[in-house]
C-alpha cells in the first residue's frame, strides 16, 4: 500500500512538473505548438479539410526536404531536380494522409514534453510522452534542428523507431529491387498517394 502510494506520488509529481519545465527552450516550445495546433485541427475539422490542415502543419514544422534527402540517402545525388520535386511532393501527400488516418482515431490523448537534450552537432532531442486514455503512455522523441528558416523537426522516433530511418530502409530496398533506379519509387509513391 505504502509503496504504491509513493509510486503514485512520484508519478503525480512528474506530471505536474512537466509543463512547468517544458516551457523553457525553443525546441520544446516548437513541439508543444505543433501538438496544440494538431489537436485543435482534430477537434474542429474532418476528412479532406483535416488532411489539408495536417499538410499545412507538416510544411510549417517539418523540414521535409531534409528528411527526404536523408531517406533517399546515397540515391539523392543520382536524382534530377524534377525528380526530387516530384519525390518530395509525393512524400508530403502520403505523410499527410498517413497522419490524418492516425489522428482520425483520436480519443483525447495528450502530449507532455519531458526533457530536451542538446547534441554536439546542434540537434536538440525533445523527449515527450503521448498519454493515452487507456494503457501505457507512448514515448515519442523529436529531433529538432536549426535550418535556414528557423527551428524545424527533422525526425520523429516512436518507441525508438525513427520515421526517417524506417523510410530509408523501405525506400532503399524498393530501389535496389527495381534496378537501382529512383524513378520506379517515385512512380509508386505517386500512385499510392492518388489511390
Amino acid at each position, binding site marked *: 500500500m505504502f509503496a504504491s502510494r509513493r*509510486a503514485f506520488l*512520484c508519478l503525480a509529481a512528474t506530471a505536474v512538473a512537466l509543463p512547468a519545465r517544458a516551457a523553457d527552450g525553443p525546441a520544446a516550445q516548437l513541439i508543444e505548438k505543433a501538438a496544440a495546433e494538431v489537436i485543435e485541427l482534430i477537434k474542429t475539422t474532418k476528412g479532406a479539410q483535416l488532411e489539408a490542415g495536417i499538410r499545412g502543419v507538416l510544411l510549417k514544422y517539418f523540414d521535409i526536404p531534409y528528411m527526404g534527402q536523408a531517406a533517399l540517402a546515397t540515391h539523392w545525388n543520382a536524382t534530377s531536380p524534377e525528380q526530387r520535386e516530384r519525390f518530395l511532393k509525393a512524400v508530403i501527400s502520403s505523410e499527410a494522409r498517413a497522419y490524418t488516418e492516425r489522428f482520425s482515431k483520436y480519443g483525447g490523448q495528450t502530449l507532455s514534453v519531458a526533457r530536451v537534450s542538446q547534441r554536439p552537432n546542434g540537434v536538440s532531442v525533445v523527449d515527450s510522452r503521448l498519454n493515452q486514455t487507456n494503457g501505457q503512455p507512448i514515448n515519442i522523441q523529436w529531433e529538432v534542428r536549426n535550418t535556414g528558416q528557423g527551428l524545424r523537426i527533422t525526425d520523429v*522516433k516512436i518507441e525508438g523507431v525513427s520515421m526517417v530511418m524506417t523510410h530509408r530502409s523501405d525506400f532503399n530496398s524498393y530501389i535496389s529491387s527495381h534496378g537501382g533506379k529512383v524513378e520506379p519509387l517515385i512512380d509508386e509513391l505517386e500512385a499510392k498517394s492518388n489511390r
Partner: protein
Amino acid sequence: MVEGFFKHVAIIRHSALALAAAVALTGCGDTGVNEPWDPLEGPNRFVFSINRAVDTIAVRPVAVFYRDWMPAAGQRGLHNVVDNLGEPVTAINEVVQGSPGRAATTVGRFLINSTIGVAGIFDVASRIGLSKTKEGMGDTIGYYAGVEPENGGFYMVLPVIGPSNARDGVGLAIDAAVDPFSIITFGISNTAGWIYAGTRFGATLLDRRSRTLFALDDLEKNSVDYYAALKSAYTQQRADVIRQKRDKTGPRAELEQRDKVALVR
C-alpha cells in the same frame, strides 16, 4: 513466444549453445552502419510471405474479432495471465543481468499474482507497488554484447513468430530451455507438455497480435516494401529497449533511480 519449439527442447539446448558460440565467434556479424544485416533475405522473404498468408487467413481475423468483441477486462486478464507465465524466465534473466533485487521483486510478483491474483488473471502485485518487467535472454545477450544494440547478428524471420535475429532467436531458444513451466510439464508427460505449450503459444499469439494490429496495419499501409520496413522497425525497437537497459534511461529506470534516492533519504 517460443512454445512452438518445445518438441525440440533437448536439441535446442545443444544447438542454442552452438549458435551462441558461433555468434560469439563471428562477433554477431557485420551489419554496416544502419541497415540490418540480412544475408538470408531470400529465405526470410519466403517465410515472411507464408507468415503473411497465415496471418491474413487465420490470425488477423481472430485478433480483430477478439479486440472488438472481447470485453476490455477479459483482454486485460488474458494479457496478465500470459505475462505471469513469463515471470520465472524474466526473473532468471534479471539474475543473469546482475539485478537480484529486481529478480526478487519479479518472483514476489509471480507468487502473489499466481495465488491472490487467481493464476495471474489479476495483476494484484502492480497495485501494491511491485511493477512489472519483462526480460528475455535476447535482452540479456544484448545487454552484455559489446556491440551497438542495432547489431543483433543476422536478421531472420521465424515461422508464425515473425521478425527476429540471431541474438533474439538464440534468446528465445534459451528462454524455452530454462523455462520451469516447460521443464515441469514435459517432465510429467509429453502430452502434458504439448497441451501446456500449445495453449500458451496460442494465448500469447492472440494477445500479441491484437495489440499490434494498429501499428502493423499502419506500417504496411505506409511502406513500399513492407518486409524492409518491418525489418528496420523491429531492429530499431529492440535496439531502443536494449540501449535503455544499458544506459538506464528508461522511464522505469528513472522511477527505480528515484526510488533508490527516496530510500537513501
